[in-house]
């Protein structure tokens, strides 16, 4: 397909603007003006509509394909959530920051406050800030909170390290690094969890925090989690919970109850908001009491008479982490999701997510290597090592699936599993859909035996075949020349 710039014709125009009803202003000095208008598309509205409609048709998506992308929780995004968020389109965030402005924003401030309370109850935390804009942003916010906590105790200089298991998501160490910490990585033991002995050895007074997700990225719930957090606390290290995998445990166990002090949630995973082809998400952060003083400002507080207001002058606050109040539109969807599903609905979400993952695991384990063969939570991680021995790698199986109309699972993550194939069906998929997927996975395994060479050419049903990534990285052609 042509680029939209290649469809331009000089002088063609799209949307018409309102005519001016005021006098034209005197021109600005030339030094302040650009020489040429920016080389934006010159196309009609129909050209734009056709271009983007046809572009969209070149994507797989949840609404068109089963999308069992591990760690991403690609559940169905209910359409009523989209409609709900649209209700808030006209509200300017600055209104709330004007003197007397909160009065005019009681709906939006109230929703954020209530969402915080709901998330706190779900995770067992004492207060939630809705400011962070995605999971990684929440992580950074969370680690900064931990750092502020240590600083307030006079331990800023002493606390130098953040401990993460080697199965952790890359954002965990990356976020901790921005927050100024060095990283200690703990290997995973044969039982699929962070090696407890090595962890114990690594712990010292210099550790500021331990960042974990539980279930971890292998989909396993760590039964020693309380012991780990007790150990951490004994060194005055705080426990950070990466909430990306919260979809597995709602109503079953609360991070706050097992010793976690800080948590971020990926509303775009657990709470049914769409992923948008990469974003936006939202990454609210929940904390235990001790950390409340450090939360980002402004904080939304509710007075006894139910009025919401903004508190800007939190003394110990780590400050602002984003422009305004976070990705409000995303939170509106998550809020609608939570009140719609309610208590029983959310428990069912986790139960069915876990049931679905275990079903796929059970059905495929005769065909694919299962490095950690225990009951999984919401996702299961296979290895294509058997197939790789024949020359068919995880990526080849992924391309096979594309040709069959399935979005591939996550491959090559977590990094600790060779040839990883990480499958997360989510609770919104039915047995029928999974059975069809399982058949195709089995077909792939058989074909890897019988005809391993055939994989190299795949996929053949897409607008492009496999792409030359090296060329892309070498040429760095990231912008179309004007």
């Amino acid at each position, binding site marked *: 397909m042509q680029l939209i710039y290649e469809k331009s014709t000089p002088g063609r*125009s*799209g949307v018409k603007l309102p005519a001016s009803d*005021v006098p*034209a202003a005197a021109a600005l000095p030339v*030094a*302040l003006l*650009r020489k040429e208008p920016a080389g934006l*598309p*010159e196309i009609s509205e129909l050209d734009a509509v056709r271009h983007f*409609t046809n572009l969209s048709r070149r994507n*797989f*998506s949840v609404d*068109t394909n089963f*999308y069992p992308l591990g760690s991403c929780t690609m559940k169905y995004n209910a359409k009523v959530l989209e409609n709900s968020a649209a209700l*808030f389109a006209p509200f300017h965030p*600055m*209104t709330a920051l*004007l*003197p007397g402005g909160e009065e005019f*924003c009681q*709906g939006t401030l109230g929703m954020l406050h209530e969402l915080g309370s709901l998330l706190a*109850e779900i995770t067992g935390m004492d207060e939630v800030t809705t400011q962070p*804009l995605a999971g990684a*942003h929440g992580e*950074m916010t969370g680690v900064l909170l931990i750092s502020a906590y240590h600083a307030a105790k006079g331990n800023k200089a002493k606390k130098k390290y953040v401990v993460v298991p080697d199965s952790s998501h890359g954002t965990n160490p990356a976020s901790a690094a*921005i927050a100024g910490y060095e*990283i200690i990585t703990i290997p995973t033991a044969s039982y699929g969890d962070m090696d407890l002995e090595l962890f114990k050895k690594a712990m010292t007074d210099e550790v500021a925090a331990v960042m974990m997700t539980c279930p971890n990225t292998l989909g396993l*719930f760590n039964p020693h989690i309380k012991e780990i957090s007790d150990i951490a606390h004994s060194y005055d290290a705080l426990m950070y919970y990466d909430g990306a995998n919260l979809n597995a*445990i709602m109503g079953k166990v609360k991070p706050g109850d097992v010793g976690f002090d800080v948590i971020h949630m990926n509303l775009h995973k657990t709470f049914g908001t769409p992923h*948008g082809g990469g*974003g936006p998400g939202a990454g609210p952060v929940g904390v235990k009491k001790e950390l409340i003083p450090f939360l980002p400002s402004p904080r939304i507080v509710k007075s006894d008479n139910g009025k919401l207001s903004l508190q800007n002058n939190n003394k110990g606050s780590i*400050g602002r*982490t*984003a*422009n*305004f109040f*976070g990705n*409000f539109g*995303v939170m509106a969807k998550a809020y609608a999701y939570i*009140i719609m*599903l*309610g*208590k029983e609905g959310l428990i069912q979400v986790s139960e069915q997510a876990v*049931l*679905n993952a*275990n*079903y796929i695991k059970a059905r495929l384990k005769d065909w694919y290597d299962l490095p950690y063969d*225990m*009951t999984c939570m919401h996702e299961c991680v296979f290895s294509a090592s058997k197939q790789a021995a024949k020359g068919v790698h995880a990526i080849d199986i992924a*391309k096979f699936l594309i040709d069959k109309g399935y979005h591939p699972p996550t491959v090559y993550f977590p990094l600790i599993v060779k040839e990883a194939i990480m499958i997360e069906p989510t*609770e919104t998929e*039915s047995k029928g859909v999974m059975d069809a997927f399982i058949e195709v996975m089995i077909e792939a395994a058989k074909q890897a035996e019988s005809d391993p060479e055939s994989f190299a050419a795949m*996929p053949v049903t897409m*607008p492009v*075949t496999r*792409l*030359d990534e090296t060329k*892309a990285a070498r040429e760095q*052609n*990231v912008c179309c020349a004007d």
Partner: protein
Amino acid sequence: MSYCPNTEKEQQEMLSAIGVSSVEGLFAAIPAALRAKHFDLPQGMSEFETFDRMKAVAGKNSSDTLNFIGGGFYDHIIPAAVDHLSGRAEFYTAYTPYQPECSQGTLQALFEYQTAICRLTGLDVSNASLYDGATACAESAMMALRVTGRNRILVDACVSPFSREVLKTYLFNLDVEIVEIPQADGALDRAGLARLLDDTVAGVLVQNPNFFGTVEDFTSLAAEVHAKGALLIASVYPVSLGMLKSPGEMGVDIAIGDGQSLGNPLSFGGPSFGFIAAKKKLIRNMPGRIVGETVDRNGKRGFVLTLQAREQHIKRHKATSNICSNQGLCALRGLIFLSTVGKEGLKDMASLNRDKSEYAKSRLTSIPGVKLLQSGPTFNEFTISLPQSSQPVVSALLKKGIAAGVPAGEYYNGLENALIVTVTEKRSKSEIDRLAQAVQEVLQCN
């Protein structure tokens, strides 16, 4: 409603395939002592009741306020096509395009987005979006630190106070000194900056138009900054680039900004997107995802995520940024906005903004006692000085249904009487007249 489709019978079949007798059995790894003791959430409801509740929530905000506020978010027109096209399910229910063959839609769109940002800013490379304009400030500063290996950042106080706050939050634990240059009549104090600029400085951060609305030319500044081996970073308002000299033309190294004004609704502050563009040589230090052009096995053009070795999922703590999910769909909206408004359209839109704003300026400054704060030119935002503190004036006007502007005193000592007024193309002459009338009335009453 849980949206969980499996019937009782199917669940039984699945359990027996797994070999456990109940769903509860799957949670056996969680010790009993650790189980949730309460889960005090409300009862669920149908989607119809949910939507009614959401309408009730929205109904508690006042929806008919006449807006003359900006401060980083702007009330611009959004062509109807933007909602319709970004609302294509294949765009919004997809994930990050890690599997390029079945994600060419998103990938090509992001490549086109990057191109639009490069062309708008006059720079060579762009990423596929950051969270917002404020976090983009922080990312750009970290980029300057990495590139130069130095540890001081100079920031014009005329940069949005929110951006400056976020910058401080991000850099708090990194061994970095952030030095603010106090504003001078709503503009950069160039002499003040010159005094601080030396070869310990990694980057200088400015904004155009700045928080007061003042428009400046940073061309000579860029030369001065480069002379000290530092980078010049400019935060820009994309709609203004329909008219104003681009960062590239000024010699800026990194341009950043918030993309809300490009087709994203105000939505109480988000989601919008941050953009970042830079000179080509800085590409390996860029944060976030980047889409690159390449070819497939048949030589056909295609697009992939590229230079991933910069990113957290490969480099972990050594990555250029921790960002993973970005604001892709909002960036797509930005691209669709720019495509439907188009080359001449953005120019016209910029003119319309300035014309309306100049009209408002002349109306407001003809009220006795009201003066313009800045001496320099402005785009669609300007700052007036009232004969009294602006805060009570703003709150009195709000009660009359007019958000008249942002009181500068909330963010700058000594500017208690100043009011930053924004006028976009959506404001009609008669609405501007209503504002001027109302300001005059309130000033007379006080």
